[in-house]
Every structure is written in C-alpha cells, then in structure tokens.
C-alpha cells in the first residue's frame, strides 16, 4: 500500500497529530502511513509543503525525522458482501480478524484486509450480456446472510454495455462482469468497491419522509414518532438510559439493515451488543438480529482520531445499503464523544476555538453527517427507494442541553427525545421526557397513522398529551396547597395521567413481551385508559364518587395490558373494553352498595 518513493519527514508529534514536511504532493484527506511502523494517518491540513496528519493509532515512540509514506488514496471504506455481521473499528479494520491473528491488543500498523478476500459468494447474475447499464444498476445478487440479499451494483462513473457476466461462486476480488463504455474501453467489475468516507454517495432525488419507522417503543411511536429517512437525537445525562434506548431501537426498529456505531462509549456497552444481538430474534423475519447488523466500535480507550472517522465509516456503509433500496437505520452512540475528538484535534492544530473549545466548524460537520440521512430515489434505471434514518445520542455534561453539541444537533434534527435524569431516578424508563421532547414529523405522519392504523389515532394521542400537560400544571398546585384543594375532575385527570405514565409510557426493555409493542397494541392500551377516563368524567357529573372510579377493578387489568402477548391482544382488548363499560354501569346502578 505504501509508496516508497514518495515520503515526507516528521517535524512534530503531538498526540494523535503529526506534522510532516516535504509533503507538497499529497492531497487533502489522503491516507498516509506514518513512520516505519506504518501507522494509519489521514491528512487533515496542508500549509505549503507541511501536512498535518491525524493518526488513527497510538503515536508513542514516534519522533521527528521519521518518514511518512504516501498511499495516494483518500480514506475509503471497502464495500461489498461480508459487511453484515462484521465488527469494524473506526477506520473499518475488522476487529474479529485482528483478534484472531493478533490477539487481545491491536498491533500498530497491522494490515488486514477489511473484507474477507477468501470467502466465496454465490453470485447470481441479474443483468444479461448485451444489457445497457448505468451507475447504480444491479448486475447481480449475493445472499449475504439469510435475511440480506446483497445487490452488486454498477460502480460510480461506469456506463455502457455488459459484455460478459459470470455466474456462481466468486470472491469479492474476482471479476464478475465486464462493461464496455461508450468510448470503447472495457472495465472489469468486482464485487468489491471502494468509496471515500467523507464524500456522500450520490442519489437521484431526495424525497420527503412520509412513513413512520415503527420502533415498538410506546413513547416514541405514539408521541414522538420518527419517519423512515428521518433524523433524531437522544440527549441525556449519563445513567438516563441513552444506550438502552439506542439498543432498543437497534433491536426493534423497522429497518432492513442496522449500522451501530459505538463511538467513544464504554467497551462493555459494545460487549452487550455483541452478546445480545446474536441471540435475539428479529420480530419480522424471525432470524437473528446480527444477520442484518453492521457494528462499528471505537470505544473510549481506542485512539481518539479514529473516533472522528468512525461516524463517516458508518454512514458510508449505510449509504451503500441504501443504494440497494434498503431501509437502513444508523445509530451513533454518542456524537458528543465524536465532537470531543474533533475538539482534541482542533486544539492540537491550534485552530481558533469556538464555544467551549469546540471548533468553529462543529455544527457544519454535524450537519454534514446528519444530512447524509434521508429518503431517496436511488441511482440506476430501475426505480428503487432507499432510506437512512439516523439516530444520534448526545451526552451533554450534566444533562444540560444548552451546551454546543446539543444545540448544534438540535438545529439539524427533527426529532428530539430528551432524556431526563429525574425520570430515570424515579425508575421511569424509557426516561424520555414527554414535556420536553418533540417530533416535527408528526404532521407528515398523521395521515399514515389515521389511515393505516386507526381513524382516531392522532386525536387520541392529542388527548393523552393534553392530559399529561394538565398533570404538570396541576402538580404545581398540589405541591403548593395539597391534593385536597383540587376538584374531583382534576383529581381524575391526575389519576388518568398517572395511568398513562405507568401503564403506557413506562416500558421495560428487558421484559420479553413488553420490550416491543405493535402499533395496534399501543392504540389499544391508550384507548382503554382514555375510555376509563371519559366514563369517569361522566360518572363524576352523575353521582359517582371519585374514589369508586379510581378504585375500579378494571384498572388493574388496564395496568397489565402491556404484558399481553401480541397474538392474544385483539380478543383481550375487546374483553377489557366491555368490562370497563359493565363495571361502570354496575357502579351507576349501585350494585356495590347493596351487597
């Protein structure tokens, strides 16, 4: 990979930043190999013949005078079959293969092929000899895992007639097709493609998101839905469950491919993913979740510069699968650590610091990342629609979202799931604060919910939200003068809000049934709570007592509705609705008292 002839000389080493002279020929964002240990580095600044290089590996033991070798290639990822089920570091080195060849520690400058070169894939041709193809057209297919059909597409800047196409087993470096361009030159196409990570992959047209990405998490789907192709942020102080929410989304979100970027967080969180995903079943396909997952791990103890790259590596892989027409969800946990890596590099580059020492380009870099998400028409003659939904965790210090990373993120994202330490302390999980969170997709998605799920979905959601807001106002009164000063109607509202919180919003990620709730079940639970509330209001206007309404036996059943398995839900829901009615009628008639 290294070019022996062209080499610079190190003049300064400052942690992950190396400055080298004699580098006039190098290009911005080119990969270089630093010193004779051949550490991976990327050129991030050029001044005259001096290049600043961020090194993705530990630079201890490197000093001025040592060489820097050119590779004349930008930092790229390798795209092709074999991505799924792999675990990569920030610059797409396969950690499992490194472990096999080198053990627990990553040796400096190790060269491992990023994708398995030996494995044979069963290539099935889709295009025929003589077909005219353009960039993005599908040449053939490979069954990558039992759930992912990997489409081999015509690479960028290639157009022409297929002169030859292979069939049957092939490795990713074998030529599988030849395309003759209009200029008469024949191009050999392999399953392996390279793409520079900092450049977004092209698409035909960006579309407005119109369908929700169902996550099975009640508070998210009902109150703050995210669209397929949408972008969301989860800011929250530590201990509030950001990572669990991310994991839940990675497990249950309605997406074909999941790219999980563990960026600067603790190693054990990645271990959780590695331990759980191979064992968990996807509710839609019934297959293991790992069969549709790409993991990128750059934990807090790994070199800081690679953390900066890990986000780009992740989104480029996501874009590649999007181009095949898949719905991809990318989780980044957490973008704050990524911003800290930017800050560290920026500080070492002696750039003028912006707010809190973050570089001035923090918000444009964040925007660059999130803007690569979206619902798009893919390249190619055939009409294909793919999507990337991006969900980034933000860890603001002290949970105060007025800091720069949160603020810059909030300017871009359309869904905000604000986690609250107070809720987490009360053991209310997921600790998404319903008073602070919002989703700007609500308007776009309302039609979908009302026409596809239930007619009165959005009306019901609105009512429930109003009750929750009323609760917070009433709570202030209660705190001042006590619950006795409230009218019974208001007390009923508070009781209902409590029910919404405990019976609906609260969801246990580790319970087998509760971990995923379908839209119809979500609707049903909320419907039951609100029906009880409406009858209660009516009853108070009649002669019923508040305590009788609050102590209705059916409420216990409503509280346990979330534990009803999906397949029994429709019948049990009907039963519960009938019971609410009949218990209410009995109360009115006074059966309880005569007995």
């Amino acid at each position, binding site marked *: 990979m290294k070019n022996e002839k062209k080499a610079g000389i190190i003049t300064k080493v400052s942690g992950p930043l190396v400055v080298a002279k004699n580098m006039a020929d190098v290009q911005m964002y080119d990969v270089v190999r630093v010193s004779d240990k051949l550490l991976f580095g990327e050129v991030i600044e050029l001044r005259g013949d001096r290049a600043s290089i961020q090194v993705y590996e530990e630079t201890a033991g490197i000093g001025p005078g040592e060489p820097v070798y050119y590779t004349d290639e930008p930092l790229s990822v390798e795209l092709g079959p074999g991505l799924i089920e792999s675990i990569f570091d920030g610059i797409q080195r396969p950690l499992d293969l490194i472990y096999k060849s080198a053990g627990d520690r990553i040796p400096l400058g190790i060269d491992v092929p990023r994708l398995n070169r030996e494995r044979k894939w069963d290539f099935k041709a889709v295009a025929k000899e003589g077909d005219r193809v353009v960039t993005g057209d599908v040449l053939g297919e490979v069954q990558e895992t039992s759930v992912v059909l990997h489409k081999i597409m015509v690479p960028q800047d290639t157009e022409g007639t297929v002169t030859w196409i292979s069939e049957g087993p092939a490795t990713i470096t074998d030529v599988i097709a030849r395309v003759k361009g209009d200029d008469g030159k024949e191009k050999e196409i392999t399953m392996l493609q390279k793409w520079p990570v900092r450049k977004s992959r092209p698409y035909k047209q960006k579309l407005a998101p119109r369908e929700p990405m169902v996550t099975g998490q009640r508070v998210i789907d009902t109150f703050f839905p995210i669209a397929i192709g949408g972008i969301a942020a989860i800011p929250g102080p530590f201990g509030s469950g950001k990572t669990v929410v991310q994991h839940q989304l990675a497990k249950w979100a309605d997406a074909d491919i999941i790219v999980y970027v563990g960026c600067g967080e603790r190693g054990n969180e990645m271990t959780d993913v590695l331990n759980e995903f191979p064992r968990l079943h996807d509710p839609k396909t019934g297959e293991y979740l790992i069969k549709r997952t790409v993991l990128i791990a750059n934990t807090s103890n790994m070199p800081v510069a690679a953390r900066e790259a890990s986000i780009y590596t992740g989104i480029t892989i996501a874009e590649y699968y999007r181009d095949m027409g898949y719905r991809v969800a990318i989780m980044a946990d957490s973008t704050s650590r990524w911003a800290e890596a930017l800050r560290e590099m920026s500080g070492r580059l002696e750039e003028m610091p912006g707010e809190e020492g973050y570089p001035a380009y923090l918000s444009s870099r964040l925007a660059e990342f999130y803007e690569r998400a979206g619902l798009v028409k893919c390249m190619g003659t055939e009409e294909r629609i793919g999507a990337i939904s991006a969900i980034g965790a933000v860890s603001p210090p002290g949970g105060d979202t007025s800091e720069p990373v949160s603020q810059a993120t909030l300017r871009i994202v359309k869904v905000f799931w604000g986690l609250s330490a107070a809720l987490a302390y009360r053991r209310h999980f997921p600790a998404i604060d319903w008073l602070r969170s919002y989703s700007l997709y609500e308007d776009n998605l309302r039609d979908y919910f009302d026409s596809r799920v239930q007619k009165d979905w959005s009306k019901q959601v609105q009512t429930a939200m109003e009750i929750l807001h009323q609760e917070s106002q009433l709570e202030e009164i209660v705190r001042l003068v006590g619950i006795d000063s409230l009218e*019974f109607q208001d007390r009923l509202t508070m009781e209902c809000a409590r029910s919404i919180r405990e019976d609906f919003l609260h969801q246990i990620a580790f319970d087998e049934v509760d971990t995923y709730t379908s839209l119809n079940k979500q609707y049903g639970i909320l419907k039951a709570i609100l029906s009880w509330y409406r009858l209660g209001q009516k009853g108070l*206007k009649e*002669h019923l007592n508040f*305590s009788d309404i609050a102590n209705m036996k059916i409420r216990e059943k409503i509280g346990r509705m979330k534990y009803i398995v999906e397949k029994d839900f429709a019948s049990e829901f009907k039963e519960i609705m009938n019971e609410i009615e009949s218990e209410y009628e009995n109360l009115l008639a006074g059966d309880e008292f005569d007995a």
Partner: protein
Amino acid sequence: MKERNDIAIIGGDDAVVLFNAVGIKTHIVKSPFEAEKIVARLAQERCRIIFLAEDIYEAVPETVEKYQYSPFPIIIPLPTKTDSKGVGLEKIKDNVEKAIGINIF
C-alpha cells in the same frame, strides 16, 4: 318552566318527616348511596340549599367535598332527633379557622 325547589332535605324518614309540614321538599333515603344519587340530581336541578341528616352527612364525605368549592348547592348537616353530634359546629370551626387563621372557639 319546571318547578324548582330551592331547599331540600335528605334523611331517614323520622328525621325529615316533620319538614313536610312546613312545605319543604323532603327526600327519604335508606342508604348513603341513595342520598348521593339524590344530591347529584338536586345539584343538576340547581337546588340551592340541601340539608343532610347528620348520620347521612357523615357517610358521604366525598359528595360533601365535591360541592364544597362551588357556590351552590350549600350542604348543611342537620341534627337528628336522637342527638346532635356537633358535626355542623365542627365544620363551622374548621371554616373559621381557615378564614382567620386561629381557632376562636
């Protein structure tokens, strides 16, 4: 227009029967639950003052509380012929204490 009773009395028959003589509408009830029902109905009919026999008054605290902060109906406990338990006085004491801050009784 429907005839409106501004004053009503609810209680056991021996407690209220006398009020029939002075022309006040009386409601004879056997259980507190019945009384609750009647109070709710009277309130909807915009009855102004409801006397509740003391024993009933004590048995329906929630109903009493329900109308506590609305101007009408005013619910007043009525000592029965057996003995006064001082429920009314207790209530007055509470209200005065709430209003002026000290117990003057």
